[in-house]
């Protein structure tokens, strides 16, 4: 079930270093929101605060609020493990579990939740692999290791793994940056299909990709190296690329920055 994300006054630290500063935004359900900006502007850090993965890094710390349909992910009694079960994530480099078969990779999240029956499991795995447009390529070798697939297939396997648990939100951290153009296209098509069911947030360095897949785009920037990253603006993707309201956004998008 797709949910709305409401961020207010979010600041993230690495030790004493302030990585992102005072970010507020709303992400609509059943839409794709793209984060763009130069390297080091904190867009990946911000993404990782949305499923409490930021605090896994030693010294990682967060102030502020992230509401998922009115429930604060950083509330005092919230278990980060429970948050990560409802906010799925796909990483920059495909990272299927190398010791598991394709089937077990997709089933991994379900087995963690503990509530499944054997035939039910097979159904969910098939549905998720179909959802990730991978089923036809792997249906004859579900028992082979996931690490034997190509990079693009591995990334779609990771997407299948993430959607198998039916998360409310799907976070993608530069999911195509390690892939060739054909695999990238396959993933972009997939994102278009997945947004009917999930709230999707994607970090990308590729501005054409942001323009192709997203409904809304957020531009992050930092004033200087070592300074915290800030949200410059967030708007409809068409407006960001055609007629942004901040000069810095236009400079970045047209290549005049630095």
């Amino acid at each position, binding site marked *: 079930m797709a949910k709305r994300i409401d961020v207010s006054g979010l600041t993230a630290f690495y030790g004493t270093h302030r990585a992102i500063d005072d970010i507020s935004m709303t992400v609509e359900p059943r839409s794709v929101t793209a984060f763009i900006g130069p390297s080091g502007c904190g867009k990946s850090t911000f993404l990782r605060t949305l*499923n409490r*993965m930021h605090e*896994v890094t030693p010294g990682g710390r967060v102030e502020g609020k992230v509401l998922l349909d009115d429930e604060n992910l950083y509330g005092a009694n919230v278990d980060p*493990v*429970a*948050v*990560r*079960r*409802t906010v*799925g*994530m796909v*990483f920059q*480099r495909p*990272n*299927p*579990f*190398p*010791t*598991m078969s394709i089937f077990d990779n997709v089933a*991994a*999240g379900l087995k*963690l*939740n503990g509530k499944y029956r054997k035939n039910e499991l097979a159904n969910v795995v098939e549905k998720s692999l179909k959802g990730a447009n991978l089923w036809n390529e792997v249906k004859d070798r579900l028992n082979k*290791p996931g*690490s*034997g697939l190509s990079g693009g297939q591995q990334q779609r396997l*990771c997407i299948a*793994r*993430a959607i198998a*648990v039916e998360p409310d939100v799907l976070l993608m951290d530069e999911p195509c940056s390690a892939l060739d153009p054909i695999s990238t296209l396959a993933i972009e098509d997939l994102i278009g299909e997945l947004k009917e069911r999930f709230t999707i947030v994607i970090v990308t360095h590729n501005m054409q990709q942001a323009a192709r897949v997203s409904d809304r785009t957020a531009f992050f920037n930092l004033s200087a190296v070592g300074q915290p990253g800030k949200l410059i603006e967030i708007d409809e993707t068409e407006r960001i690329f055609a007629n942004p309201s901040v000069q810095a956004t236009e400079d970045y998008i047209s290549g005049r920055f630095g």
Partner: protein
Amino acid sequence: MDTTTAPPTDAPPPPPVFDKGAPKAKKQLGDRIFLGLSRGSGITLLVIMAAIAAFLTYRAMLAISKDETNFLTTFEWNPQGEPVSFGIAVLAFGTVVSSIIAMVIAVPIAIGIALFISHFAPRRLAAPIAYLVDLLAAVPSIIYGLWGAVFLVPYLDGLNKWLDEYFAWTYIFDKTNEGVARNLFTVGILLAIMILPIITNVIREVFLQSPKMIEEAALALGATRWEVIRMAVIPFGRSGIISASMLGLGRALGETMAVAVVLSPSFLLSFHILDAGGGTFAQNIAAKFNEANGFGRDALIASGLVLFIITLLVNGAARAIIARRKEYSGANA
């Protein structure tokens, strides 16, 4: 204007730069010395192994051919007696059983310590603990033996009685003879302590190398800390755990002094591991070598050959297990 094309001339082509005309270019001196040294080292290793194997086999054959009983099934060790009678049954049994006890105790503890150091302990604590484990490896084995005989044996007496009283139904903990805890169980515990450092260190190294990417994948799926370890760390380190265990097992099989000091040697072969007595290959050799005549020594060497073969088999088995799991090892991640 075209400036790249040279005007045509009648000058002869320049001499070749790489082809000096010699039929085979001479190798640099440094290369030749290094090649000779490394090749020599490799050959030395093979020669040493061959020499040991040949020596063991030759002397063992001298002894076994004169043995008037079955070498493999005879309990007693009396090569200088009349008739000549000696066999490895007790020694093989004692060696294998004490090593298995050591493995059963040491491997789970080693995995626990390695996990604690690599994934749970705060950094300030991890380094000192790792150092302590190294320190355990630095204690000479005769010290372990003395500690075992003077401290462990009397203290384990009570445990032995308790195990005998409440767990005799398990058969292995049923104590059927009198005597203090100079038995295979005590030897196993002592060996476990002695092989703990090497197993822990190898496993710790493997766990430290488990890829962050895969651990994050598990975390992002909503895995708890323990589930991350179960899904991403232990499967990745499985072949490392097996190699580490086999390294430890090799040590346990060959350990001499500690066993010789603790065990009260006898020709006893009993599956009741609390029964006092028994023997191991290395302990038997250490205890009897000085008093043995030439033939007695040959007989002891024959037992050494069996130990050598057992160790080889253990190593081979470990390699086979690791090779079988290669596809899933994570090496291709």
